[in-house]
């Protein structure tokens, strides 16, 4: 394979070129309610070429091997066109030339589990909510994505790495008259099939929440002091802070760069945030990114001070900061962009009970339900919450959507729990979908959060 890839990029007159060939095998089994909607395994493949020429960089994604020459030519022309139109040449930060094959250690290789067994496990989990009368439907899916990646560059790197993602997840919907509630449920990971077994408890717990939500009280819009559970705090870390530490999102915004200078005191002293793709057994684990750079743990916030950033080779050079190995593509249809790996708030010292006492009156908000960010502003939803009065948990509340400003919120995180949890299901849609986007946190206490209500 590498011989073929080398021969394709060797024809370029560019300053630098790389090529990534991927074989992607997807196994999907999906249920809508009791009915099986889809089952099957399919393999697709394709190439992405990137060319750096005279200070311009361009990429072409293609699926037919016979288009390789045309693709290289287009990328070269586009790079040349860019070079004529920019003031500052694009440079790549220097990285080690690597020749390596990395196949992750698995706890049960999903390729060795029969599709019948996968179907039965999915059917079993899907059946858990459907036993209950108040559950109107489910949409539960088994998804297995195996990316076999081959990367070669004109600098001489040749890297083969496999990324194996498995999960069973979806939505449980409850209904009472015209009131419909739904809850996300799921298990998954990057280290094999075993993580999916014996997880009935997850689907039983989420079924209970879907049913309880039918009786929950809608939240009143307003500003609250809150405790976020690890899932919510993890999504906050990803959405509000994490995206802002992706160098490509702020590179060309002078106003955002000004605020995000290394050394800036952005958050409360209790706050430490790191992105570490090298943690084995976590969803966001990988060894090399899609530019052939070895991933490294990157401390982003240290006692509230910005100390690091996530980079591609291009942005590391542009910012004059160290490479971090965070330039990742969804698959062979895309050139890589900067993505988080495993981003999380590092645990503090407070127990959950300490946080409840510190909160006094407010809300305890649980389980993220989608979020979005735009520079310093973020919005995200929660599955449910409980009223807290005098440090005691009260009734269940629904329809929680919060919004806020990154800087104010980072300052308003006043206490961090000791109970770190990282997520098992990813789905970050920054132009491309990253199903291995992993985030986490312990419980955290946040002051003055705006809740929209309905």
């Amino acid at each position, binding site marked *: 394979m590498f011989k073929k890839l080398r021969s394709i990029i060797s024809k370029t007159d560019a300053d630098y070129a790389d090529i990534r060939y991927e074989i992607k095998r997807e196994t999907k089994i999906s249920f809508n309610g009791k009915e099986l909607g889809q089952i099957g395994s*399919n393999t*697709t493949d394709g190439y992405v070429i990137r060319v750096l020429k005279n200070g311009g960089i361009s990429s072409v994604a293609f699926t*037919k091997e016979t288009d390789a020459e045309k693709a290289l030519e287009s990328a070269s022309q586009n790079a040349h066109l860019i070079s004529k139109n920019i003031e500052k040449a694009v440079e790549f930060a220097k990285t080690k030339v690597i020749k390596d094959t990395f196949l992750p250690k698995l706890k049960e290789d999903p390729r060795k589990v029969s599709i019948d067994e996968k179907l039965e496990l999915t059917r079993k989990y899907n059946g858990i909510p459907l036993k209950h009368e108040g559950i109107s439907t489910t949409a539960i899916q088994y998804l297995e994505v195996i990316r076999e990646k081959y990367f070669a560059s004109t600098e001489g790197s040749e890297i083969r790495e496999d990324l194996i993602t498995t999960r069973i997840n979806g939505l449980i919907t409850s209904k009472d008259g015209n009131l419909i509630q739904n809850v996300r449920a799921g298990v998954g990971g990057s280290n094999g099939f075993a993580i999916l077994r014996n997880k009935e408890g997850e689907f039983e717990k989420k079924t209970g929440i879907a049913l309880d939500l039918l009786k929950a009280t809608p939240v009143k819009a307003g500003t609250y002091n809150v405790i976020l559970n690890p899932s919510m705090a993890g999504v906050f870390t990803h959405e509000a802070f994490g995206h802002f530490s992706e160098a490509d999102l702020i590179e060309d915004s*002078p106003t955002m760069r000004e605020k995000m200078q290394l050394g800036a005191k952005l958050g409360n002293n209790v706050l430490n945030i790191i992105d570490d793709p090298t943690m084995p057994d976590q969803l966001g684990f990988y060894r090399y990114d899609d530019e052939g750079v070895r991933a490294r743990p990157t401390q982003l916030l240290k006692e509230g001070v910005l100390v690091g950033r996530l980079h591609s080779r291009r942005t590391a050079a542009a910012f004059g900061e160290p490479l971090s190995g965070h330039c990742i593509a969804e698959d062979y249809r895309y050139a890589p962009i900067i993505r988080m790996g495993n981003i999380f708030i590092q645990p503090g010292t407070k127990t959950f009970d300490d946080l409840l006492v510190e909160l006094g009156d407010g809300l305890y908000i649980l389980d993220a339900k989608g979020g979005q960010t735009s520079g310093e502003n973020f919005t995200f939803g929660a599955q449910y919450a409980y009223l807290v009065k005098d440090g005691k948990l009260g009734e269940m509340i629904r329809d929680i959507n919060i919004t806020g400003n990154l800087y104010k919120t980072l300052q308003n995180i006043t206490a961090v729990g000791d109970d770190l949890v990282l997520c098992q299901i990813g789905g970050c849609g920054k132009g491309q979908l990253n199903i291995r986007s992993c985030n986490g946190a312990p419980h955290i206490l946040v002051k003055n959060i705006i809740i929209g209500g309905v």
Partner: protein
Amino acid sequence: MERLMQIARKVSDKVEIYSLDETSNSVSFENAKLKDIDSKFQSGFSLRIIKDGKVGFAFTKNLIDREEFVENALSSLKGGVEAEFDLPLTGNLPKLDTYDPSIGSLENNTIVDECNRICDILAPRTEGQINLYAGCGINRLRLMNSNGTDLSTDYSYYYTYTAIMYPGSYASISREGIYKKFKKTPDACLKYVLDTYNGSAKEVSPRGGKMKVLFLPETIYVLMWRLWHATSGKSIYQKESPISGKLGKQIFDSKLTIYNDPLNDRWPGARSFDDEGTPCQYFPIVENGVLKNFYYDLHYANKLNTKPTGHGFKSSGWGGDTITLKPNPHLNHLFIKPGDKSLSEIIRSLDRGIIVAGALGAHSGNIPNGDFSIGLCPGLYVENGEIVGYVKDAMVAGNIYEVMKNVVAIEDTLYPASMGTYPAVLFDDVSVATK
């Protein structure tokens, strides 16, 4: 494809083959400077077979080993996915004007020159940051089935997206243009973006509460997403639509007419058939506030014992790779009927209110229930008929079955935007939460 059809027919009762070739170029400008140019040439095939009332599905990028491809579809039959529907025999469809051959020879430097021209116009007239995205492409689609259907369509597109961004964020005033061939961005579009941004450049923090809220064409999708969900044959079958029993009933303000019109070929992407070969048609969803129809693909129409409506598309909410997706009911050509007031007339009529110029978190919240709760990104605050500034850190929330009962005015012009082609719509009595 013909050979694949022959091979597949021998081992199954019904066969459907879908092929898609896509070529595209995209150009991005950030902070008024050229940033990236990327291209794609992608192709692929999907295969659906029906045998003994079960459906098998497979897809591939390269049609190298046809036998193996068919074998893959056959092996997925074992799962036992029911297929009680037949594949349609469709021909003699209306000819739509979807393809302009000039796109094939459009060069990236023409697009770059046009973006430079726009930057030269905008940059001296605003302090906001200018981002532009433009690009073009050609899609070639062919669909054939064993009942004799053999349909194809080519379509070309050229788009520009012009945005001026507020400081410290990606919140922006933006407008999209989409055409079948290269076209210079009209002055009116640039003027709208400039005037709206410059008029709202000051940050303001108004009081919250219930007030009039104007959704621009760029943000109406927040509301339409909930309606998409509620009127899909899939939701009706799954019993997750709050309006399943409301056909013929008034669900929205009588000023609102919402329809799907795949045959409208003024914009790119018009279709005379869906991704299963069912003919497309003008299709009212809501007429003068009255719920008229639910939309179906072959599978859900069969399940609910009704006729397919030409809405079986291989789409997913998150882009997805078309050939890897099975058809599902989708509204891919949604319109809201324009009203009789210009945008500036509507704004002038507002004593106090919020304009939703950008939305964060449209995908969160209880979509089946019709609830939405979005961060303003940004919101523009209007007092005494004039925009006085932009608002951040605020949310607009509600339920579409309450909010859309209270329409004050609808803009007189349609704009292509996210998930459809819409005018701006002004609603009364919507909840706004601020700090």
